[in-house]
C-alpha cells in the first residue's frame, strides 16, 4: 500500500493554478449562497435546500470534506499513511468540550486551547512516530489512535462521558448558533472550515515545501540525496494536517451540539481514508469530492434503505437493501470500478491510459 503510485498528469503550475482559483471561487460561491435558495431536489434531499435538516446534512458533508482534505495532505500528497488521524479530530472536539463544560472557559478560548494542545501533541507524536517508515508508521499511529480512543471511552467517564459522549453546555454556545433556525450559520461555519482547509492544503502543495513533499511521495531516497531532510517535511505535513483535523473536530462539535467518541475510533480514520481514495488521492478536488459524497451517502442512505420503494421489494432483495452499510459498501466497490483513481479523476476525465497490459 505504501508503494501506492498515482500518475497525476504533468502539471504546468502557473496556468492551472490561476484557473483553479477561478474554479474554486465559483464552487465556493455557489455553496455560500445555498442557504438562500428554496429549490428542493426531490429524491436527493427531502425538503428545500434552506430546510434545517438539509442544511445540517450539507454542513456535516462540508466538515467531512474538510477533514478529508486535511488527511489527503498527509496521505495523498506526502505519501504518509496514518491510521490515527481521528485522534486529532478527537482532540479538537473533546479538549474544547471539556474546557467548556468542566473548566467553564468560553467557547472560543477553549477552541484556541484545543488547537494549541493539538499542535504540541502532533509535534511530539510526529517526531517519534515518523522515525518508522511505511506501514510501520501507519500502525504506530493506529496504536496511539486506539490509545486515545480507549482513553476517551473508558478513561474517565465523568470527564468525557465515556461511550455516551458529552453534550456541549448550551449556555456556552453563542445564541447565533443554537436552535434549528440558526442551522444556516452552522452551515456557513462548516463551509468556512472547508475553504480554510482547501486554501491551506492547496497553498502548501504549490509551495516550495509542498513540492518536496510530493517528491518524498515519489522517491524518498532521491530527496535525501538532494540534501533535503524528508523527516522534516513529513513532520510539517503531519502537524498541519493534524491542526486542520482538530479544527474540523471543533466545527463538528458545534454541528452535533456535543462530543461523540465515534470520531476517535479507527473506523472513523478509515472512513477518512475511504473519502480520500473515493475522490482520488493527491488530486486537487479529490478529497473534497470524496468527503462530500461519503458524507452525503453515510447520512442519507438510511433514507434510501428506509424508503417505501425498498420496503416494496421481495424479501431476498429487501433484506440487504434495508441495511445502509450494505448500500455504502456496495457503492464503494462500484465506484472503484467505474471511477478508477477516484471520482475527481472521473469528473476531470483525466485518467491517464498506459498501454501496459496485465500479464
Amino acid at each position, binding site marked *: 500500500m505504501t508503494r501506492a503510485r*498515482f500518475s497525476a498528469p504533468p502539471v504546468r503550475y502557473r496556468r492551472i493554478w490561476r484557473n483553479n482559483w477561478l474554479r474554486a471561487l465559483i464552487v465556493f460561491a455557489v455553496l455560500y449562497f445555498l442557504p438562500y435558495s428554496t429549490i428542493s431536489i426531490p429524491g436527493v434531499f427531502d425538503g428545500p435546500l434552506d430546510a434545517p435538516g438539509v442544511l445540517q446534512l450539507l454542513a456535516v458533508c462540508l466538515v467531512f470534506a474538510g477533514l478529508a482534505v486535511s488527511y489527503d495532505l498527509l496521505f495523498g500528497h506526502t505519501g504518509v499513511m496514518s491510521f490515527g488521524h481521528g485522534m486529532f479530530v478527537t482532540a479538537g472536539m473533546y479538549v474544547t468540550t471539556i474546557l467548556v463544560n468542566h473548566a467553564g472557559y468560553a467557547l472560543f478560548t477553549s477552541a484556541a486551547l484545543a488547537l494549541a494542545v493539538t499542535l504540541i501533541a502532533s509535534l511530539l507524536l510526529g517526531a517519534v512516530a515518523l522515525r518508522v517508515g511505511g506501514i510501520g508508521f501507519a500502525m504506530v499511529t493506529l*496504536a496511539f489512535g486506539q490509545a486515545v480512543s480507549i482513553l476517551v471511552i473508558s478513561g474517565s467517564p465523568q470527564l468525557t462521558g465515556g461511550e455516551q459522549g458529552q453534550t456541549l453546555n448550551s449556555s456556552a454556545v453563542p445564541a447565533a448558533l443554537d436552535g434549528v433556525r440558526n442551522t444556516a450559520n452552522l452551515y456557513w461555519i462548516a463551509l468556512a472550515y472547508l475553504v480554510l482547509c482547501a486554501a491551506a492544503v492547496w497553498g502548501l502543495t504549490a509551495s516550495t515545501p509542498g513540492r518536496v513533499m510530493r517528491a518524498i511521495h515519489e522517491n524518498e*531516497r532521491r530527496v535525501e540525496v538532494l540534501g533535503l531532510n524528508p523527516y522534516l517535511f513529513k513532520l510539517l505535513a503531519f502537524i498541519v494536517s493534524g491542526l486542520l483535523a482538530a479544527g474540523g473536530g471543533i466545527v463538528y462539535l458545534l454541528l452535533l451540539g456535543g462530543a461523540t467518541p465515534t470520531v476517535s475510533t479507527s473506523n472513523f480514520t478509515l472512513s477518512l*481514508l475511504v473519502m480520500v481514495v473515493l475522490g482520488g488521492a493527491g488530486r486537487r478536488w479529490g478529497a473534497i469530492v470524496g468527503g462530500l459524497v461519503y458524507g452525503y451517502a453515510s447520512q442519507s442512505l438510511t433514507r434510501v434503505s428506509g424508503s417505501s420503494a425498498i420496503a416494496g421489494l421481495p424479501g431476498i432483495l429487501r433484506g440487504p437493501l434495508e441495511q445502509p452499510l450494505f448500500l455504502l459498501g456496495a457503492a464503494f466497490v462500484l465506484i472503484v470500478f467505474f471511477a478508477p483513481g477516484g471520482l475527481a479523476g472521473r469528473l476531470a476525465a483525466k485518467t491517464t491510459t498506459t498501454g501496459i497490459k496485465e500479464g
Partner: protein
Amino acid sequence: MTTLVLLTATGLGLAALYFLVASGLSLIFGLMDVLNFAHGAFVSIGGYVGWTVADHLSGTFGLVGSLLAGIAAGAAVAAATELAVIRPLYGRPLDQVLATVGLGLAIPALLQAIWGADSRTWLLPGWLAGTVNVAGAHVPTVRFLLIGIAVALLIALRLLLGRTRAGLIVRAGVEDREMVTALGIDVRRANSAVFALGGAAAGLAGVLYGLYQGSVSPGDGTSLLVFAFVVVVLGGAGSITGTAVAAIAVGLVQQYADYASASLGDESVVILLAAVLLLRRRNLQGRPA
C-alpha cells in the same frame, strides 16, 4: 498459582484465536501486498456458515462438518473476491483497499440482513463444553481445540510456503508482475490460490471463534481485525512464524494485563505495538543500488 496457569492457558487460547485470524491476513498482505479489510468479514462468514451446519447436525459430527463448511465458505468467498474485485484492480493498490473496505462494510450488513443482529447461540458438543483440570485450573476444553488447530495450521502453512513454488511466485509477483509472467508463469493463478488460502484460514477462524464464544454475531470478525493487524505488523507481514510469535505475545500480554486492571488491559496491546515498532525502527527504505 492456579490463577497463573489459568491465565497462561487461556492466554494461549486467545493467542491461537489471534493467529488463526492474522495468519490469513498476513498471507495476503505479505505475499500480495493487499491490505485486506474484508478479512474480518470473511471470518464472520465462516462463523455463520459453520453455525448453520452445527445448527442442523449436532454433536462431534456437526462440529467437524461446521469446521469443513467454514473453511470451504471462507475459501470460496475469498476466491470469488479475488476474481471479481481484486484481480481487475492490480496495479491500483488504493482502489484495491477501497474495494476491500467496501466489502468489509457490506458483508456484515448482509449477514445481519440474513441472520439478524442478535447473536446466535452455538451449542457445543458435550465433551467440548466442559473444562480440563490443569494443575487445579479449570481450562475450558475449547481453548485446547483452538490451540491444536492453530498449531496444525502453522505447520501446514510453513510447509506450503516453504516447499511450494506458489509462495515464491506470489512474492515475486508483488515486486514485478511483468517479469514473473515473462518467465512463463501465470501469476494470477498463484494469486487466486493464495487469496483462497487466506480466505480458508479466515473461515476456519470464524468457526473456531464461534465455538470460542459459544455464539456468532455479524460484527465478530471485524471486531478482531484490529488485533489481527497488530499481530501481522508485529510479526512482520508474510512471515507465518513471526505472526505466530506475535500472536502469542499479544495473547499473553492482553490476558495478564486484563487481570491486572481493566484500563491496562485495554491499553496493553497498543502499548506493546507502539513500543516494539518504535524500538526496532523498521524503516522501509529502498536498497542501495
